[in-house]
């Protein structure tokens, strides 16, 4: 018996290097990278203690030159680049430190909801008798407006970063579960999965080895959208006064504090607003670009 000739279909060369040369991926990556650096090095960026207030310096306009009093009473001159809020706190320092909170919330919420959603989705998609039960719970969760659910969850415990992250992650889980379950339902019918069943592969191995890899690409995309919405929801919760304690420098808190005065002192809301908009825009653009790259259905075919 003779072997067949080599496959006649040419294999398209892989172009990994082109990945970063795409502007829709490169630009948001660079901006987000800068924001991460800002968050990491916040104390060294000309900031002062973001919670320190000074009644003599309330509602100063951006560029105001004043002094900062240290704990030991010494005073040093300081330029309030973005002005101060109604308690005399430096908005620049609060915005810079706020980057930390927003990025931590965005990343952790994306991580938590993705991991939990992936696990639940794999089980619901593969174990048929659990599917109906699990998915009805998920439908129930989705029927509750996410912000209200988050407010309810935060009010169950003392407000803090962990409580906020959990409160934002829980309403996002059903979306991830639905996505993963849909992928599992289509992949489990593939003959190679059935071949693995007849090969006696135990179910957990089967899930991890043959089904999970197909979920990764859509999950990465979904995670970016979860991340963007988490940053927004955290701001909304803080703005509504049910998120982090008001002294915490989160972008939402800064805007909440500035809300009453924003007709006279718009800088209170302008600067954190710019940061939120830029961050969420970058994450969303990156997610869109990744989806175009990773989703084979959208890829242009010849």
């Amino acid at each position, binding site marked *: *018996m*003779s*072997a*067949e*000739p080599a*496959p*006649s*279909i*040419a*294999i*398209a060369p892989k172009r990994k290097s082109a990945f970063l040369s795409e502007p829709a991926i490169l630009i948001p990556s660079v901006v987000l990278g800068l924001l991460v650096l800002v968050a990491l090095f916040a104390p060294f960026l000309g900031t002062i203690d973001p919670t320190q207030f000074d009644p003599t310096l309330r509602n100063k306009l951006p560029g105001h030159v004043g002094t900062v009093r240290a704990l030991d009473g010494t005073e040093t001159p300081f330029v309030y680049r973005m002005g101060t809020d109604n308690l005399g706190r430096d908005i620049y320092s609060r915005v810079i430190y706020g980057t930390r909170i927003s990025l931590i919330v965005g990343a952790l919420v994306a991580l938590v909801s993705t991991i939990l959603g992936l696990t639940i989705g794999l089980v619901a998609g593969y174990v048929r008798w659990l599917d109906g039960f699990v998915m009805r719970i998920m439908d129930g969760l989705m029927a509750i407006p996410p912000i209200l659910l988050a407010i309810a969850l935060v009010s169950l415990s003392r407000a803090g970063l962990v409580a906020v992250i959990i409160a934002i992650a829980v309403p996002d889980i059903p979306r991830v579960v639905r996505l993963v379950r849909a992928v599992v339902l289509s992949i489990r019918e*593939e*003959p*190679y999965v*059935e*071949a*693995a*069943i*007849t*090969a*006696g*592969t*135990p*179910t957990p191995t089967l899930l991890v*080895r*043959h089904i999970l*890899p197909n979920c990764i690409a859509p999950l990465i995309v979904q995670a970016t959208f979860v991340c963007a919405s988490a940053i927004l929801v955290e701001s909304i919760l803080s703005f509504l006064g049910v998120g982090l304690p008001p002294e915490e420098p989160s972008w939402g808190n800064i805007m909440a504090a500035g809300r009453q005065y924003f007709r006279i002192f718009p800088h209170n809301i302008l600067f954190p607003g710019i940061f939120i908009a830029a961050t969420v825009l970058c994450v969303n653009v990156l997610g869109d670009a990744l989806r175009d790259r990773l989703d084979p259905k959208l890829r242009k075919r*010849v």
Partner: protein
Amino acid sequence: MADVLAVDRLTVALPPGSDRDHAVEDVSLKVGAGEIVCVVGESGSGKSVTAFTVMGLLPREVKPVGGSILLEGEELLSATPRRMRELRGARMAMIFQEPMTALNPVKTIGDQIEETLTVHTNMSSAERRARALETVEAVHLPDPQRILNAYPHQLSGGQRQRAMIAGALVLDPALLIADEPTTALDVTTQAQILKLVAELRARRGTGVLFITHDFGVVAEIAHRVVVMQKGRVVEQGPADDVLNRPQHSYTQMLIGAVPSLTPPARAPLDASPVVLQTKNLCKTYASGGLFQKKHVTRAAQNVTIDVRRGETVGIVGESGSGKSTVARCVARLIDPTSGEIAIDGVDYAKASERVLRPQRKRMQIVFQDPYRSLNPRRTVARSLIEAPVNFGMGEQAALSRARDLLALVGLSPSALDRYPHQFSGGQRQRICIARALMVEPEVLIADEAVSALDVSVQAQVLKLLDDVRARFHLALLFITHDLRVAAQICDRIVVMQKGTVVEQGATAEIFAAPQHPYTKALFAAAPGKHIGSKVTA
């Protein structure tokens, strides 16, 4: 006979970076009025590209770069898009392989047929309705009035294809292009559609360009045959000449690879013990539930089959006959509703997954679609050693066995480190057979294992299956819809219809003297009975 279509030295370029420069090269063919010209070739031969070029339906990236196409004397390659639109539907029409996707699911059949009339004529609505009704009657659809008001999903596959033909012929085009119109249909439906095409051609004088990969179909209807290979015409001529006295070696090879409907004499089986036994196997699907009416489908009913060691038993039947259900129950990919399935007398029909898992190595399965049977992210080596490692074999021992088995199925051991996409369909099916053999099964199930392959590759894979069956003394359960393939490889045949076994017996006996009316109908419908050759003998 005036030429309806004259294609002259047509060359169509593929975009740069494709596996070859031209999809078709220097293709010349003619279709006369009232003539059926069959274009045959394996996948990638350029037969569909030729048809799409005539219709002007090529994707933007693929461009005709030379030659000419004359439809009733009018050049099509230089025609404006507007002129092409006028010609499509009015002077030339096309029908496709899958009528379900070629029809719009949200419009009635009547609306879709009338659309052509609305676009091309000034007929009043009543005239259009009358014309549509007339055409639907002409393709012998039952209850034409009801069909016109029906949606595609309410019709059967054969009826949909008839409706497609009605839509194509409503304006009496001079040329009908049929792109594998019967490939997705059952053999009895196929026979009816072929008869219809031949009849309409005779009555209306339509020239038909019929694209197919199936020499049985060619033998049934073609006046002239064009054989294509890798984008070039290698041979053309009257059907009788090409089929019975092929000149080109490729045509000879293709026709030689078509399995014959006459079963070869097979070595009589000694009294080998029965390995696989199903007794009153039933599988029912119940849909609906809380909010809907319960709907019960009996996919398999009281199926009783024995397979001896070293024996090949074929289950043949049309789609929906339950043959795959039986195969998947035997492999325990689905759980049977009732009945027994036993290997060496050990019933595992109801065994729990935990009890079943150690037994799984005794029955292995090869699937239809070689492109989906291997995990695209894993190397061939990892796919092959998965099962033996699960059953406790060391990795090194498994790898060395994989090397031996790859050699056995005709692949070099270097294949181990490569990924599935680097192989052709036939090669992948060989890998799948090797994978099934890795755990030394007693029962091998081949579920339409050669149906997706080109005819020349099909012959090789069939021979391989027969070889490994003899070599390892396997009980081979062979599921197929193709009587030709069944005739060549099976010792015994089980004919299934609508979930039940209607007839079973030795292959030679059943082919010589079928007893059940359904079996008789199946054989009567097989196209091109006299062509084909013996593969395994």
